[in-house]
């Protein structure tokens, strides 16, 4: 069968002081293939997605050499909209931008741009929403969507273009297991029935490998393995290339908790209820106590209120009913004060203020001897030491998150709230993150962590709160 995508000697070198590079790369993708592209954080996966979409150097700075053929036509000879018709792209950050007011408008944007008849646009939109489980949200304003639903929306918008090749950069990173399986099943069905070539760039290899027909591993911008996706079950193979193994090793041990953890609560939510303006209730009559010296995991399907709960505990939102209190000494007080809470949200780069990773990190800790040593240990544990001179905003999504977490750890708040902290983390970095959290809890810190990542959930967390969606009235 002819290749729908052929890459020959592709090399990409992004600009603006980014020393990483991709290639030379040779790949041939046939119709109907589901290719899982994995590799360490910073191996060049997102760079590959950008160059295949023809965005380098049209939108992002960089140099590209080599040849990419889409259905036999050289990519360089195609206009951007012609590339978009043949190759659909879903980026890492689903909230990077929107062009419509509602979910259906957003999905319709691409087909409308193609000048399709209204009936065809409507048919494509309905099919894409159905495939991604968003039919019930067709008329929902975009600002009311949870991040997981934004991710599903980004996939729906790409599906509505009906491309021959679909490139998805971490499409399941913020989805719950059910939503991720549904999305991946849809992609596998597209490949099987319609012959679409699907390229999935992912760290969460476990679910994707079950449906992939081929595994490509990138290391320092080059293909180091191309073959059976079942290799992600081989722990030695995963360790060698920094991948997440498909099963959590027994030696990974329990989730963070100090020996005497759980005795002293640092924050408490009492009968808390919350609803966003104009939206359905997200949380109702919820009680939670966050103890010092332990980690508490909050889990639940997309839209169940995990992020909302963390923001309430972090003082970024006010509850509609009930109250959130913080312990200071023996007294309980309303409202967080300086040093009470650290928060790393789903968009971690909004706290960055400095020009280099080193300066940014230094601004979060006191700088005295002991604090500096602890902070440096956190920096090394999260593998940021080699990025000291880089601008924080030039980092990859996973690197930004690592920097934000390392900075929050260095500030040593009494309560550290982390929202989906493992997004963009490869196997080694995930282990480093959990070790850093373990150390933080061991020294008396309280951790509240919301996640849908099966590689985080399966660590045997002793303190766990499962949230459920509140049904719409």
């Amino acid at each position, binding site marked *: 069968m002819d290749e729908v995508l052929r890459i020959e000697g592709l090399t990409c070198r992004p600009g603006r002081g980014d020393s990483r590079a991709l290639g030379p790369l040779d790949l041939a993708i046939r119709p109907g293939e589901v290719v899982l592209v994995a590799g360490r954080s910073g191996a060049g996966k997102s760079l590959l997605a950008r160059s295949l979409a023809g965005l380098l150097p049209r939108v992002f700075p960089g140099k590209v050499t080599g040849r990419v053929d889409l259905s036999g036509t050289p990519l360089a000879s195609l206009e951007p909209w012609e590339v978009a018709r043949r190759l659909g792209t879903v980026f890492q950050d689903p909230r990077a931008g929107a062009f419509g*007011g509602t979910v259906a*408008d957003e999905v*319709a944007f691409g087909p409308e741009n193609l*000048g399709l008849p209204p009936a065809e646009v409507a048919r494509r939109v309905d099919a894409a929403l159905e495939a991604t489980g968003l039919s019930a949200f067709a008329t929902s304003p975009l600002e009311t969507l949870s991040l997981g639903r934004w991710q599903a929306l980004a996939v729906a918008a790409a599906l509505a273009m009906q491309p021959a090749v679909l490139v998805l950069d971490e499409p399941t990173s913020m989805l719950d297991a059910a939503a991720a399986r549904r999305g991946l099943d849809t992609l596998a069905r597209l490949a099987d029935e319609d012959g679409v070539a699907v390229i999935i760039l992912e760290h969460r290899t476990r679910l994707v490998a079950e449906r992939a027909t081929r595994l490509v591993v990138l290391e320092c911008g080059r293909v180091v393995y191309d073959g059976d996706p079942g290799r992600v079950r081989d722990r030695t193979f995963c360790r060698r290339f920094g991948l997440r193994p498909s099963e959590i090793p027994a030696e990974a041990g329990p989730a963070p908790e100090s020996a005497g953890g759980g005795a002293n609560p640092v924050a408490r939510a009492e009968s808390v209820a919350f609803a966003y303006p104009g939206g359905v209730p997200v949380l109702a009559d919820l009680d939670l106590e966050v103890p010092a010296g332990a980690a508490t995991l909050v889990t639940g399907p997309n839209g169940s209120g995990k992020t909302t709960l963390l923001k309430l505990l972090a003082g970024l939102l006010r509850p509609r009913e009930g109250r959130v209190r913080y312990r200071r000494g023996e007294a309980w007080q309303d409202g967080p004060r300086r040093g009470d809470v650290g928060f790393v949200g789903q968009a971690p780069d909004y706290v960055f203020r400095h020009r280099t990773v080193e300066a940014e990190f230094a*601004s979060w*800790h006191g700088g005295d001897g002991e604090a500096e040593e602890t902070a440096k240990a956190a920096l090394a544990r999260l593998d940021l030491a080699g990025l000291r001179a880089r601008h924080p905003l030039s980092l990859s999504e996973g690197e930004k998150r690592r920097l934000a977490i390392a900075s929050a750890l260095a500030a040593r708040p009494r309560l550290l709230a982390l929202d989906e902290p493992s997004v963009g983390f490869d196997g080694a970095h995930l282990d480093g993150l959990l070790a850093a959290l373990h150390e933080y809890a061991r020294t008396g810190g309280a951790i509240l962590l919301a996640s849908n990542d099966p590689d985080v959930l399966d660590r045997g967390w002793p303190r766990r709160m499962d949230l459920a969606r509140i049904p719409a009235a």
Partner: protein
Amino acid sequence: MAEFTTSMPTAATGRDAPGVGLKVLLLVCLAVAAVIVDGWWKLAVLLAVSAGCVGMVAVRPGPRRPGTLVWAGVGLGGLAVGLWAWGLPVRPYAGPVARLVILLVAGRAFALSTSAAEWRRALDRARLPNRMVLLFAAAHAMTGMLASEVRFARQGMRIRAMAEANGPDAGRLHRLWRAGVAFCARLFARADRLTALAETRAFSRPGRRWLARPHRSRACDLLVGVSCVAATAILCLV
């Protein structure tokens, strides 16, 4: 409180295009009212507030409650009635304030009730040059992006303020300067990503985007239009 349904169609349902024209009429009428408000400020404020509320409630997409705008309207209306009843010496300031209120209320009602897709369809149906349609779509997307950037930036400032227990203490002005620089840097980065997203959705394809769709006016749209004309007529004639 009752919920209000939408006149906003979706591509998915293939229903009619919305009454952007009527909403433009609302905006124009209120702008006219703002221009002629001198001397008739008491009535103008009340009319503008009620027309703005009616407009938003009638045409806002998606099931919505009137929300804060209605309460703001009620408050402003009450204030206007109070000033009128007590005859306080506020006349010299009344005209400019009333103009501002009218325009803010009208603009807010219009922005809340009109989606980017509605605009694009309306402009396209009006046979405006393609470049103008694209320019508008880009500007609209950038405006939405700016609003969310501001929201995230405020959140980032609060996170830093709460967590920096031991951090080096910079002056307030210095911290604000750094926050401003970081905000601009992020804005540029996000504009790049928005452009990339637009390119992957065939944004730059030449030629018309939306074929003409049937347009049916709804009763509430007509009501809004008639109310606007009546309000302006009253203001001009009384």
